[in-house]
C-alpha cells in the first residue's frame, strides 16, 4: 500500500510563474480556499527570466496606440492562426493588468511625465512594452509573489504533480504528486484545477528554457482527455548566445534590437533588408537611413527589418549562416556597440551587459555579440474557452504558456507576460466560478493513485537499468536535429519513430540513491511528459504541410491559405493513442476583421 498525504481545497493552481500566481491571487481574492503547487522554490519559475517587457497598449509613449492596434499586431504577427477572442481580450485588458501591478508595489521605468515607460519590440507597431530595464520578469514575479504572500495563499514549493484524477462523473477532482525534498507522495483534491505549468523547451538541445519546462501541463491535460492545439507552432528566438558552448542557447533579449541593435553577417552586411516578406513590406523600411530615423520618428518612417516578427528574423539568420556568411561559432553579429552610447546600453540593458561580460568575456558596449536561433516558446497548448480559460474537460482550466490559441503560429515579444496576467486572472475567475457552483463530490480512485505512485517509484527499485540523463540527451538530440527550426516530412517521420523507440526505454529507467531530493529520479518522472509532448509537436508538424510562423517546412516553403483556416487538434482516442484532427478556426467577427485591414495607423 502506497502511503500519501491528502489535502483538500477549493482551487489548486499548478504552477507559480506569472500565470499561476495571478490565477491564485484571483481565486483567493474571491474567498476560495486556494493553493499553489510548483516544482521549484517560490519566485524561481521561468517567468523570472523574462527580460524585455510586458506588452500593453497603454499609449504612454505613443498616444496613437490602443487595443485595436495591439489586436491587429498580435493576429498578424501570429500569421492569422490566433484565436480572435483571446487576442481581443488580451489587447483590451493588458493595460489594466499592468496598472494593477503598480498598486501591488511594482516599480516600472517611467516616462518623463511620470507614467510607465514603454519600449519598442518586434512586430509591435508602437513602443508598447512596460519594463524595468531588462529584468521585467523579475519585477512581475516578485510583485505577484509578494501579493500572494500578503493574501496568505498556501504554496507547496518543490512539489511535482504527476497526474490528474477525475471523479466517477468525469470531472477533474484530484492531482497526485510528490514533495521533492522528502519524496513523500501527496494527493490534492479540489473543485477546480488550474494548469499554469509553462513551456516545453527542455526537450531541445539548445534552448532558453530551464529544467522545469518539460511540458508537464500539456501532458497532464492530454492524459486527462483534454484537447491540445497548434503543437507544431514552436518559436525559435532569433537571438540566443552561441559561444561559449556551455551557454549556447541562452537568450539575448529582443530589447537589444528594440533599443537600436542591428544584425550583420560576416561580410558586414545588414542582411535583414534582403528578407522583408511581402506582408510586412508596407510597414518595413527598405533602406538604412529610414530604418535609423524610425527610432526617433515612428510616424513618418517605417520600422527597421531587424524588428520583423521573430519567425522571420530567425529564418533569415539561419539562411545567412547556411549560405556561409556566419561568424566563427555559427551565428551572426548583433551590434549595439557601434549604435548607442555605453551609458545608454548599460542603463537599458544591464543584465545583457552583465551576462555577456561574465559568461562570454564580451563587452557589448564595445563589441558585437555573436547570436543564433534558440528554442524558446510553445505557442500551442491546451485548448481553452477564451473568457473563462476552461479546458475542454470539466474542472480543468489553463493559462499562460501551457494554454494555446492567443499567439497563433508566432508570438510577439512581450505578449507572453501580458498573456500571463490577463488569462491568469481569467483562469482564476473561471476556476472560482466553477468551484462555487460545483455540486458533485471530489472522490478519487485510490487504486489509480496507487498505480501512479508505484509507476513513479519504479526507477528507484530497478537495478542496472538506464540512466535517465542518457534518455534525456538522446531526446534532445532528436528534437534538435529533426524537429528544429526548418523541418521536412522525411525527418519528421524519422523523429516520430525515434521518439517511439525512446518511449520503449522508459520502463527500463533506473536511478540510484534515495527518494529525497534526487534529481535523477525527478528527471525520470519528467520524461514521460517530455516524450508525450514531443510526439504532439512532431505529429502536428507532419500534418501542417505548409510554412507558417514558427513552423517552417522546407518541403512546403509557402503558406497555404487553406491551412490558415484550421487548427490541428490533438487528443487521446478510445484506446489511449494521441490522434490529430484538423478543425476550423473560430470565425472572426467582421468588425475585428476590418481592424486587420486598416493601415499602419
Amino acid at each position, binding site marked *: 500500500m502506497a502511503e500519501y498525504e491528502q489535502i483538500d481545497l477549493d482551487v489548486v493552481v499548478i504552477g507559480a510563474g506569472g500565470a499561476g500566481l495571478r490565477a491564485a491571487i484571483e481565486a483567493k481574492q474571491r474567498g476560495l480556499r486556494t493553493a499553489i503547487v510548483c516544482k521549484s*522554490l517560490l*519566485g*524561481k519559475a*521561468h517567468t*523570472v*527570466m523574462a527580460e524585455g517587457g510586458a506588452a500593453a497598449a497603454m499609449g504612454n*509613449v*505613443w*498616444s*496613437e496606440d490602443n487595443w485595436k492596434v495591439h489586436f491587429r499586431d498580435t493576429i498578424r504577427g501570429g500569421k492569422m492562426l490566433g484565436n480572435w477572442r483571446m487576442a481581443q481580450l488580451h489587447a483590451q485588458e493588458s493595460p489594466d493588468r499592468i496598472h494593477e501591478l*503598480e*498598486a501591488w*508595489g511594482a*516599480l516600472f*521605468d*517611467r*516616462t*518623463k*511625465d*511620470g*507614467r510607465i*515607460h514603454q519600449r519598442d519590440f518586434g512586430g509591435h507597431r508602437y*513602443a508598447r512594452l512596460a519594463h*524595468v*530595464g531588462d*529584468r521585467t520578469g*523579475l*519585477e512581475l514575479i516578485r510583485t505577484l509573489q*509578494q501579493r500572494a*504572500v*500578503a493574501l496568505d495563499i498556501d504554496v507547496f514549493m518543490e512539489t511535482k504533480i504527476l497526474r490528474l484524477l477525475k471523479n466517477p462523473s468525469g470531472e477533474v477532482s484530484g492531482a497526485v504528486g510528490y514533495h521533492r*525534498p522528502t519524496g513523500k507522495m501527496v494527493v490534492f483534491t479540489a473543485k477546480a484545477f488550474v494548469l499554469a505549468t509553462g513551456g516545453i523547451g527542455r526537450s531541445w538541445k539548445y534552448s532558453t528554457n*530551464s*529544467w*522545469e519546462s518539460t511540458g508537464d501541463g500539456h501532458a497532464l491535460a492530454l492524459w486527462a482527455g483534454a484537447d491540445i492545439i497548434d503543437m507544431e507552432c514552436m518559436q525559435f528566438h532569433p537571438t540566443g548566445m552561441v*559561444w*561559449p*558552448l*556551455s*551557454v549556447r542557447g*541562452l537568450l539575448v533579449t529582443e530589447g537589444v534590437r528594440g533599443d537600436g541593435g542591428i544584425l550583420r553577417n560576416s561580410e558586414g552586411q545588414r542582411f535583414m533588408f534582403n528578407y522583408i516578406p511581402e506582408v510586412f513590406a508596407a510597414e518595413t523600411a527598405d533602406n538604412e537611413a529610414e530604418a535609423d530615423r524610425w527610432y*526617433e520618428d515612428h*510616424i513618418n518612417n517605417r520600422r527597421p527589418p531587424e524588428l520583423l516578427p521573430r519567425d522571420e528574423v530567425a529564418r533569415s539568420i539561419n539562411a545567412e549562416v547556411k549560405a556561409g556568411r556566419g561568424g566563427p561559432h555559427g551565428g551572426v553579429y548583433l551590434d549595439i556597440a557601434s549604435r548607442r552610447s555605453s551609458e545608454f546600453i548599460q*542603463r537599458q540593458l544591464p*543584465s545583457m551587459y*552583465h*551576462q555577456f561580460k561574465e*559568461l*562570454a568575456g564580451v563587452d557589448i558596449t564595445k563589441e558585437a555579440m555573436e547570436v543564433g536561433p534558440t528554442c524558446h516558446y510553445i505557442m500551442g497548448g491546451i485548448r481553452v474557452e477564451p473568457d473563462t480559460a476552461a479546458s475542454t474537460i470539466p474542472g480543468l482550466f489553463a493559462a499562460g504558456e501551457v494554454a494555446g490559441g492567443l499567439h497563433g503560429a508566432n508570438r510577439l515579444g512581450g505578449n507572453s507576460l501580458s498573456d500571463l496576467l490577463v488569462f491568469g486572472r481569467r483562469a482564476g475567475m473561471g476556476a472560482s466560478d466553477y468551484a462555487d457552483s460545483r455540486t458533485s463530490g471530489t472522490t478519487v480512485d485510490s487504486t489509480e493513485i496507487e498505480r501512479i505512485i508505484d509507476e513513479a517509484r519504479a526507477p528507484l527499485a530497478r537495478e542496472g537499468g538506464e*540512466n*535517465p*540523463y542518457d534518455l534525456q540527451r538522446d531526446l534532445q538530440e532528436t528534437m534538435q536535429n529533426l524537429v528544429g527550426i526548418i523541418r521536412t516530412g522525411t525527418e519528421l517521420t524519422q523523429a516520430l519513430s525515434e521518439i517511439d523507440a525512446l518511449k520503449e526505454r522508459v520502463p527500463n529507467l533506473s536511478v*540510484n*540513491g*534515495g527518494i529525497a531530493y*534526487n*534529481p*535523477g*529520479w525527478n*528527471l525520470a518522472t519528467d520524461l514521460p511528459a517530455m516524450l508525450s509532448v514531443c510526439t504532439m509537436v512532431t505529429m502536428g508538424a507532419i500534418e501542417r504541410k505548409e510554412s507558417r510562423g514558427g513552423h517552417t517546412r522546407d518541403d512546403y516553403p509557402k503558406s497555404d491559405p487553406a491551412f490558415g483556416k484550421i487548427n490541428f487538434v490533438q487528443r487521446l482516442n478510445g484506446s489511449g493513442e494521441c490522434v490529430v484532427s484538423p478543425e476550423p478556426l473560430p470565425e472572426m467577427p467582421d468588425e475585428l476583421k476590418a481592424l486587420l485591414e486598416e493601415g499602419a495607423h
Partner: protein
Amino acid sequence: MADVVMRIWRGDSEGGEFQDFPTQVSEGEVVLDVVHRIQAEDAPDLACRWNCKAGKCGSCSAEINGLPHLMCMTRMDTLPTEEPVVIAPMKTFPIIRDLVTDVSFNYEMARRLPPFAPKDPGPDGTYRMQQIDVERGQEFRKCIECFMCQDICHVIRDHEENKEHYAGPRLFIRYMELESHPLDTNDRRELLREEMGLGYCNITKCCTEVCPEHIKITDNAIIPLKERVVDASYDPVAWLGRKILRRTKKTATEAANHRTDPKPVKASQ
C-alpha cells in the same frame, strides 16, 4: 580542456562528507556546468538547485572554496585548478541534501513583513511617479533572492538562536524598499527595531560583498534604516513629512549629476 577535481559535499541532515570527482573542464564553463556533467555521468542523485543558468533566478547559491557564489555565474577559469574546487551547501540554512538547503526561514521572514499599502491613485485611476523616485526602490528590487547575504551574515550564520528575531539583510533591503516607495503608507520602523533585529547588525558589510546584484545593502539600506529607527520621534505626521522632504532633497542632489535621458524623444512627450 583542463583537469580538475571537484570536491562536493554529499549528505543530508544526518551528516555527510566531501566526495571527490575528477573531471575535465572546457572553455567558458561555469561551476554549474561541471556539476551538471557530474550529475549526468557519475552521480545522477547529486542534489543541487538551478533554473536560469544566467544569474537571474538566484537558485544555485553554494559555497565555493568557502565563500557564497552563484554556481552558474562562477567561471571555472577564475578558480585555481591545482587544488580541488570545494563546493559546499550554504552553511546558515539546514541541509536537505548535498548542495540543497532548507531556505524556508527567508520565506517565513517575508511573511512577517507588513505588506505594501499604497495610497490612492490619481483621478485617472493610475499613479504618477518620477524615474528618480523609483530608482532607489528599483535597486533593491533587483534582488534575486539567492539568500547569499543571509548566508554570510554572522548574526545568523553563527547563531541559530537569532533567527527567530532577525530578518537579515535580504529583508532589510525589502523594508528599505518600502520605506522609500513613493506610494507606500505603512510604517514598519517600530517592528524593525522591536522584532526584526536591525540592531544586531554591526555593519560589517559582508552581505554587500557577496551580493551578485551589487546591491549596496549596508550603505543604501541598513544604515539609512538604522538612522530612521533610532530617530526618537514616531510621530507619523512628522515621519511622512520627512519621507517626502527627504525625497525632494535626494532628487535635487541626484538630479545634479543625473545623466540626460538617453531615450529618443517621443511624440507624446
